[in-house]
């Protein structure tokens, strides 16, 4: 086929489809056209109706062979202007100390400062915190809704510093819609602390992996005792104190580790507290990016995880009633439906200059300041890696480093330009972290994972479509 279209073909038990990269949309086709596009049959072998349909698709802008000519992030040239006044969020590492030693935590002495820094008795000074907040105020001057997040270690270890930061920020940002966020293990949340957090409208993310039998496997104090009891107590108190604002202000984050039984983890939601309150729940599998060993998830774990996803799908498509599943699965359904709408909408064409969707714009959506005042794009990258640093509160933003991170896909431009998943790539710059510099090998090694994730989303969108059109019978 001349001018081979830039598409990816899919087939389901009920139909044939292609994902058009230039239009960022999924198109349903018949079997003959599918085989033609897969180059199994020639154009001449199509009947007149199919030929007309293929031409119609071409007229509408589908089946183009266009590629991006130059891999360059569209905001590269504007980045200095953007970061001068449009930064959205500051994340402050108020301490590197933690009172827990969670087994999957990359900071819990896992890599001996090789891949990621360890927990240590280092705290942010008020001078550094104030300078960071002042820097943020200056660099968010035309942004109306700035936010400040507190991170650690366990941020509540430095509650006095946190209080000072909040009171200083509220005065400094008077007139703006300022909000505060915090991720915490909640083991140190006294009544006084909860009052303070509620009064200042903090959005809390409390780590809770499941009922005691699950939570206490991995989330232990240094003396080996589990932390569930104190965390649950704090959660209930916070919910009561937040009152009507609890649903928006207090959420839990559940980390699913390979040694967790998923059914048992989710049995947390059978507890009366969760039954009577609509607690927001987010979930993630344990991240092994900065661990020396890779986490191996048993097949039973994967099967159960996917089974819950399947139940969530049945529930969202109203195919079965009365299914009880954790809330975050409903959230993931919501996101998938949003993707579905996006693929229905599509775009006109790939731009001439563009880049894969993975890397963020460092500093714009957020920037992370560690105890020393060094800046990074977020709290999840390695603080040991020279190539991840984007400046300091003393020297300002390092725009060269930022541009390198934004354009990390230039290192793999030949591959990225040909990739059908480029618009929805999930590989951020952290996947190119080679310590002193950004490297392509790690990024390429994770390509398959990103494409596989994208395939999964597209296939679910196709399933949405087919469920709506084919499964019309309801009991």
């Amino acid at each position: 086929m001349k001018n081979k279209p830039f598409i990816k073909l899919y087939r389901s038990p009920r139909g044939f489809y292609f994902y058009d990269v230039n239009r960022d949309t999924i198109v349903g086709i018949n079997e003959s056209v599918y085989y033609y596009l897969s180059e199994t049959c020639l154009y001449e072998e199509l009947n007149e109706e199919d030929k007309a349909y293929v031409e119609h698709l071409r007229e509408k802008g589908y089946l183009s062979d266009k590629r991006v000519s130059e891999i360059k992030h569209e905001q590269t040239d504007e980045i200095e202007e953007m970061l001068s006044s449009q930064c959205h969020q500051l994340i402050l590492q108020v301490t590197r100390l933690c009172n827990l030693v969670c087994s999957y935590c990359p900071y819990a002495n896992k890599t001996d400062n090789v891949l990621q820094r360890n927990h240590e008795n280092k705290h942010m000074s008020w001078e550094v915190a104030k300078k960071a907040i002042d820097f943020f105020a200056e660099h968010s001057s035309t942004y109306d809704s700035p936010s400040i997040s507190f991170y650690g270690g366990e941020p509540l270890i430095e509650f006095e510093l946190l209080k000072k930061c909040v009171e200083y920020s509220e005065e400094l940002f008077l007139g703006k819609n300022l909000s505060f966020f915090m991720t915490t293990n909640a083991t140190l949340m006294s009544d006084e602390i909860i009052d303070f957090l509620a009064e200042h409208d903090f959005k809390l993310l409390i780590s809770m992996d499941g009922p005691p039998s699950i939570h206490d496997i991995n989330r232990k104090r240094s003396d080996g005792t589990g932390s569930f009891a104190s965390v649950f107590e704090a959660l209930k108190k916070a919910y009561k104190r937040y009152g009507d604002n609890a649903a928006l202000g207090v959420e839990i984050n559940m980390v699913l580790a390979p040694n967790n039984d998923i059914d048992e983890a989710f049995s947390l939601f059978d507890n009366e507290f969760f039954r009577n309150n609509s607690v927001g729940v987010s979930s993630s599998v344990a991240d092994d990016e900065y661990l020396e060993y890779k986490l191996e998830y048993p097949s039973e774990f994967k099967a159960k995880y996917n089974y819950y996803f399947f139940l969530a799908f049945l529930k969202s498509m109203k195919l079965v009633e009365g299914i009880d599943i954790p809330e975050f699965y409903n959230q993931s359904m919501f996101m998938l439906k949003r993707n579905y709408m996006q693929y229905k909408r599509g775009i006109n064409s790939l731009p001439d200059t563009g880049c894969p969707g993975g890397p963020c714009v460092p500093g714009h959506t957020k920037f992370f300041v560690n105890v020393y005042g060094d800046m990074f794009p977020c709290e999840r990258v390695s603080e040991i890696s020279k190539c991840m640093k984007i400046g300091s509160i003393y020297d300002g933003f390092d725009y060269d480093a930022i541009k390198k991170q934004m354009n990390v896909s230039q290192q793999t431009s030949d591959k990225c330009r040909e990739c059908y998943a480029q618009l929805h790539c999930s590989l951020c710059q952290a996947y190119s972290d080679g310590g002193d510099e950004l490297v392509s090998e790690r990024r390429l090694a994770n390509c398959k994972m990103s494409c596989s994730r994208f395939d999964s989303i597209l296939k679910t969108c196709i399933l949405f479509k087919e469920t709506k059109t084919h499964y019309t019978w309801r009991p």
Partner: protein
Amino acid sequence: MNCIIYPCSNELIPFIDYIDKVDNDLHIVKAVCPVVCRSMVSDNLGCDISTDFDASLEICDTVIICDYKNISSMYKDIVKKIILSLEKNKNVICCAELDENDLKKAYRLAKEKKLVFRYKNKYEIPKVADFYTKQESVVIGIGSMFSPLNTDMLYCDLIRHLNESGYKTVGIGTSNNNMLINSYTLPKELFRSSISSDEKVFFLNNFINDIELLKCPDIIVVQFPGGMSNFAEEVLDGYTIDAYTFSQAVSVDYFILGIPVNVVTPDFLPELDTEYKYKYNCPIDAFAISNIEVDIELSFDLGEVVITTLDKSHAWNYIEKCSDIKDYLFCDMNDKSRNALVSDFIEKCSNNVEEL
């Protein structure tokens, strides 16, 4: 009265402009904003800008507390400033919502010190609706295609122009700052209440009619609340519910729709006219183009309509390009164009308006 305004923001430009140009008892000597907001406030506010409230207090006899989109995050500060102003023997005009206790405290303090404390009239939802009647006065309706698109400049300017032209004009707008221009604010509590839609329409109609009885204007200029066009199914913009409810309560004689520049095409605007004619019973007499563009991609990403402000000349350039439908189009940011809009209105509604 020599006044300072707090907290000032770009939202106030239309109102400051009105106060400046109309002969009234308010003379704004300074606009004050919090330090961190200074870079967001335009230098063309129409008066000097300061970030020092205490120093500005020395040079005025009245403090105007304006309503502002982030006022809820500044509430304690606002109350503190009201009390401070009264304690320093300054009159206070307050457009922002105050809690019952804070309001009583302010009134008490003002009474003790024999000062003026003017507060916006609180709307109470009536128990029983009066009967529904059409307005006798000529009604100009101003709507926004999408809710972030602000039509306050057009609204304030139109009221001023018509008053200067000799027509007694009163406004019913969406901003709480309407009391600064001797106009009224639409009762938001009515839209948010849980009463039936029928009752909302009746009460809104009564609200407008009561103002008509009180003021006996020749012309009433009303602003429609919220956006009037759906952006997309998955992008929240109120789904035009408030605008539709309001359209049932008022009979509009001349309707102006504020639109962003990126919808101005010769084909699209007549279609919009037809849609509004049947949906709101408001055929569009004029389009007022703002120097605003809808960021389509970001709107879909965030699930809400996001706009970008452009250079002033943009809107005018678009009008120049659409010569076929030029008669429909007016530039919200251009004086000459606004004058033309007023003339167009007077010409079209001259049968209704009592000639002086």
